[in-house]
């Protein structure tokens, strides 16, 4: 009889302990059975009593073309999840984004390889940087029911259940740029200059749709990466003199094209898609031309914007080498994953990756702490209904953090509002 009493007591203690680990905030008390989730605390845990959810990061960290963005994105995401842990974690778990960080060298093969190395050790990917690289693992993500927060904005992502994107796609961004310029500068012609592939291509597709919708003359110029590879693009801008040039290039190419076209007498308007800008351009000989002729489009306000989310980001990342919007993007991209984890652990979902995927599909709003409207996180419904179509425009201002000052807060033009997204704008 005595033994029986102790047995009951032990069983009760075990149940309490299990309940603590598997979400003691109510809702889902089912034990978690997913890769990358442990009852043991995270290494260097903030909350020693919490279990640990491991999130993977596959980014461009050393020698790829987007390393200047990949490094701050990764740093900001570490800071984001550290803040989550300091607030007690999620459902009895701390989040670790330190242990499984891989460099993709911006190479799709490398991306796929490092994904296969970590896929059994992580619950989801806090970051999968690049469109062609992420595209290389989309099939694997579906097979593994793995959620990934992408570090890119191609219009394919809203059509992929496993991709947890934030912000408007390049395509809608370019539509908004054209509509804004039609309304404010009465433009008659548009040229898109961009890299081949889904970044430049998705933007160019949006620009063409908006140009056709506004009956504007439209030209597309593809250009290769590299400082000295821009002669053709510059020549096309100077010869055709379009009223508006939309740039889907990297920052270096932006500096060369804007600076040299201006030096050759072009006085029209340049607007760059989000990744085309880097505040370091203000130290190049193109700085004056950029100040005079360039507007930067974006998916949310720049580094210095006054929202609670931006403020929390600036406080969390602390003193940085350069106030770069890679930090802003890394921080903003993390909110939907946080919301999904909360929904999954608190709600009545299978505590498996499939359950997390289901929880993602049920999100109707995400609290971005003001960085984006809450409806930008809507995942419940047809992509055409849920795609977020608003972007912002900033002007170049060397006195502002990241060199950008807000010109036009969240807006969407008639083209983007009315466009039927029945598939991605660009399929290369």
């Amino acid at each position, binding site marked *: 009889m005595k033994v029986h009493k102790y047995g009951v007591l032990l069983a009760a203690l075990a149940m309490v302990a299990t309940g603590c680990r598997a979400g003691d905030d109510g809702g889902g008390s089912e034990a978690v059975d997913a890769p990358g989730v442990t009852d043991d605390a995270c290494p260097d845990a903030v909350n020693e009593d919490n279990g640990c959810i491991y999130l993977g990061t596959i980014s461009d960290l050393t020698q790829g073309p987007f390393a200047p963005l990949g490094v701050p994105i990764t740093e900001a995401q570490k800071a984001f999840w550290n803040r989550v842990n300091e607030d007690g974690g999620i459902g009895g778990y701390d989040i670790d984004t330190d242990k499984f960080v891989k460099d993709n060298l911006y190479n799709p093969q490398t991306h796929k390889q490092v994904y296969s190395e970590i896929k059994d050790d992580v619950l989801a990917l806090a970051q999968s940087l690049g469109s062609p690289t992420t595209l290389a693992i989309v099939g694997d993500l579906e097979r593994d029911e793995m959620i990934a927060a992408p570090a890119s904005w191609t219009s394919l992502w809203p059509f992929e259940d496993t991709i947890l994107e934030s912000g408007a796609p390049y395509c809608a961004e370019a539509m908004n740029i054209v509509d804004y310029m039609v309304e404010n500068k009465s433009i008659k012609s548009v040229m898109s200059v961009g890299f081949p592939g889904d970044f430049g291509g998705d933007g160019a597709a949006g620009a063409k749709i908006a140009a056709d919708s506004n009956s504007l003359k439209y030209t597309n*110029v593809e250009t290769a990466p*590299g*400082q000295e590879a821009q*002669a*053709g693009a510059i020549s*096309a801008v100077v010869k055709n003199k379009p009223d508006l040039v939309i740039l889907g290039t990297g920052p270096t190419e932006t500096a060369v094209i804007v*600076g040299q076209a201006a030096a050759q007498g072009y006085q029209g308007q340049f607007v760059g898609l989000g990744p085309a800008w*880097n505040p370091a351009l203000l130290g*190049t000989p193109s700085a004056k031309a950029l100040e005079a002729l360039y507007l930067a489009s974006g998916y949310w306000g720049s580094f210095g914007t006054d929202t609670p989310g931006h403020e929390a980001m600036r406080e969390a990342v602390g003193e940085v080498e350069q106030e770069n919007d890679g930090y802003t993007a890394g921080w903003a991209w993390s909110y939907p994953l946080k919301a999904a984890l909360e929904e999954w652990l608190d709600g009545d979902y299978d505590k498996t990756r499939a359950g997390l995927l289901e929880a993602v599909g049920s999100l109707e709003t995400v609290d971005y702490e003001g960085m984006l409207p809450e409806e930008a996180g809507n995942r419940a419904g047809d992509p055409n209904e849920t795609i977020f179509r608003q972007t912002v425009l900033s002007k170049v201002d060397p006195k502002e953090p990241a060199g950008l000052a807000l010109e036009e807060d969240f807006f969407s033009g008639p083209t983007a509002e009315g466009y039927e997204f029945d598939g991605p704008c660009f399929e290369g």
Partner: protein
Amino acid sequence: MTDFLEVLLRGLGVGSVYALLALGFVIIYKATGVISFAQPALMLTGAVVTSYVAPAIGFMLFTGLTFFVSLGAAALITAVIALIVERLAIRPMIGRPAFVVAIITIGLDIAIRVVASGFIGLGARPIPNPWGLQRTELLGLRVQERHLVSMLALAVIVAALVWFYRYTRYGLAMRAAAFDQEAALTQGVSVGSVFAMSWAMAGALAAIAGTLLATSAGVDRQLWIVALVALPAIILGGLDSLEGAVIGGLAVGVVESMVGSYQRDLAPWLGNNFAGVSPYVLMLLVLLAKPYGIFGTPEVRRV
């Protein structure tokens, strides 16, 4: 016609930088029989060094002098780095097949680039220079001042190389070693020193080329890619020919500039970005007529 000549001048400006890079490749190849794929990394290193030296000394000199002093310092520092790399990684491989050494230089290139990129930080590092993107009139033609500087730099360096190879003992030793290493050894030429000298010279040339390139938009992590254009330049000019490297570099620059400016109007069916392919098309066309390049030495074997 004016437009055509301006495009030609722009091509010669860019081609001058390609020629400097190509000279570095050829100098190492002539001395060691190996194509060094570490040149792109040395080019990046040189530009990074200039981007640090120029602001550091800028407070005491005017911009033009600052640029040239920092350019000289970068050439010197990169030459020393190249010397160290040669001594540690290449010299022990003497006697190994050239293919093996070439593969080692690929590894060196990646390693040096990762280190150099670490000094670049987030974005591009500017290189203060007096020209920026300004243009000037030359015989009624508008040309970017930085392109004129590149052409002038190439002319000065080619003259210095001619003097070095013809009138100095080291130059003579390098020519002898390039012609026949064993015979040079028997005549007391230190072939090891020749190897070291060739790496140092190539490093300095790469640093100058990288700095000149970065005057337009600063030094970013992708600057090294430009050095790959030197490969078609050296092959079409002739792998073992210094004059071939110069002509090849200039030809590639001019063709790239012409194609970039006119192909979209004259031959749109070639598609976008044909300018990027044009150096390789030019190389193939030349190789069809001259399999060893324009100035290359035909290889003769007894059978």
